[in-house]
């Protein structure tokens, strides 16, 4: 698909643009939250036990309902808003955060029925959620993220630091 990835920490935010025209600014504000390549869940050996979109007593991401072009009724997310919690079979629990401000459009229900999808195709069918930032904030969000290249440099630094 036509996307440009801008990894953020251990999460990858894919912002839609149209690659055929090599236009570097993304016009279409839609963002897809996925796991970035260095996320622990993507390391081999990890099996996902469960994925839970119920992030608090009052809030389930599955209850999110949007209507109309402006996506009224959407749960509003800030950078640290949890999207879901994932438990692995080795007892670890990971919280997946939104990373960006915006309206929650949808969470991926396919990974509920098929958790392996998250690990097999993290950047496509295993996505976590779709978020639509505010028009005015769209550009600043892009700037706050790392490009693929920058991310790889970060990973390199991490590896060098730990070795």
């Amino acid at each position, binding site marked *: *698909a*036509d996307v440009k990835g801008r990894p953020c920490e251990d999460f990858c935010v894919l912002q*839609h643009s*149209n690659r*055929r*025209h090599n*236009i570097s600014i993304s*016009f*279409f*504000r*839609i963002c*897809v939250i996925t796991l970035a390549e260095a996320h622990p869940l993507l390391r081999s050996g990890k099996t996902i036990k469960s994925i839970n979109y119920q992030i608090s007593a009052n809030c389930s991401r599955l209850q999110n309902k*949007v*209507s*109309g*072009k402006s*996506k009224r009724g959407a749960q509003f997310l800030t950078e640290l808003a949890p999207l879901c919690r994932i438990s692995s079979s080795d007892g670890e629990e990971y919280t997946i955060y939104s990373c960006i401000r915006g309206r929650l*459009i*949808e969470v*991926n229900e*396919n990974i509920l029925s098929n958790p392996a*999808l998250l690990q097999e*195709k993290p950047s*496509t*069918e295993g*996505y976590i959620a*779709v978020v*639509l930032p505010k028009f005015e904030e769209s550009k600043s969000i892009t700037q706050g993220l790392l490009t693929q290249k920058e991310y790889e440099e970060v990973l390199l630094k991490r590896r060098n630091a730990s070795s």
Partner: protein
Amino acid sequence: MSSLTEKDRPVVQLLLNTGTCPRCILRFCCVGSQTLYRHPDKDLMKDLQDFLKKTQEKEDAVCLDVVDPPRKRIRLEHTEEGPEDLSHNGALSQIPSVTDGNAAVGSSAGKVCNVCLGILQEFCEADFVKKVCQKVNSADYQFTSFVFSVSLPPQLSVRERAAWLGVKQQMRNLGLSLAKDDIVQLKEAYKWIIHPQLAEELGVPADGKSLFEVSVVFAHPETDEECRFLATACPDCFKPAKNKQSVFTRMAVMKALEKIKEEDFLKHFPCPPSSPKNLCDALEIQCNNGAVFVAGRYNKYSRNLPQTPWIIDGERKLESSVEELISEHLMAEFKADSFNFSSSGREDVDVRTLGNGRPFAIELVNPRRIHFTAEEMKRLQQAINNSSDKIQVRDLQLVTRSAIGRMKEGEEEKTKTYSALIWTDRAIQREDITLLDDIKELKLDQKTPLRVLHRRPLAVRCRVIHTMSSEYIDEHHFRLHLKTQAGTYIKEFVHGDFGRTKPNIGSLLNRTADILELDVESVDVDWPPTLDN
């Protein structure tokens, strides 16, 4: 004049005394003879004065009881009036005059009418007609008939009401009755007078259904405040205006006049209405032609052309567009103010439209030129085709507004066929893709594609792929021809859109697939009619 009978005398007397013009007087006397109104103002004035001056020769009680049937063309198609006509009127018992019987001579002459504010006076004259026609001719429109529409200031209705109440009161005092409904409407009388003059000067007939509209807006700022009292009397008729424009619209004023009680009206408004100092102003004389519609089918051969101009933040991101390439020539030829482009569906910037092309229609707004022969349309089509190799048009023709419905129905109901160049990650052999050929009526569930989700509501669409036919190219490429239901997102069917379109080519072939090229092979709508090009 014969169309006035004795029962009209008090009305004529009163109105003449209070500053009402001859034609308005005729209106209040329910005179329905159109030609009479066309007589020169001076002649009508003289006739009325003669009518009043005439002394009754014999009592004619019958005359009093005869009620003039409304709008009846009373044997008065002649052009000259002589004293002999006046003697036909029967006598009437002496009616006490409101003022000096002969004071009427001076009252109305030369003043601006207190009811029509000059509309039935100066604005019926040849000078005004010339002014209108000059405007029309300089605007350089093509037309075969015209409709003349007039916008009158709302205070005219108020003054009309006041004058009528005055007349009614007078008649009551004399023990006579007067029916309001038979009074000739001001606009109607005005059109009786001005239509023939305009038609003569412009050389085409007046026709209520004409697409060519000449409109005049009249205003009378001097009396603009006269409607104000209605707002206090009937506040619910006047809603606060959304724009800065006046709350006192014609409709609102009419409504209030219907509601308000006679006594309340008379409390706030002088009866008879006062004589204004000035005439109305003719604010704007405008011409407008009804829209014409041009339809055709277009082919798109560029993979770099949007259908409509692509402008973000005031900056054009891609040069030109399908609609601009087609309408540029049409706008120039038809000399229109603007256009509205619509088509039976549309394709992405990077998708070609082949085959017979996609039906489209362009509404040309306020065109100066409207008559085009089939030959001229053909030449216009050729000109468009010569000007660009990115698009080509065919079957270019004039159509009616109602025909557009056929095109839009095509958008939702008719099938389309496509050709897609597909890439796969894992290798494919010929036998791996033959299964696609056997799949018929494949049902898809397509969530709103991510690439349009910012401007469309989130929904799931069920669409059908009717048939598919594959052409093997190499281990990672093949071409797929598909026939699909209208509204199917083809690209998403190929790459799966993050798994949000199911099933998809990837899931059917158990690989990751992506689309490299897409062409529309046909849009299966049989409109507009094919021409022998």
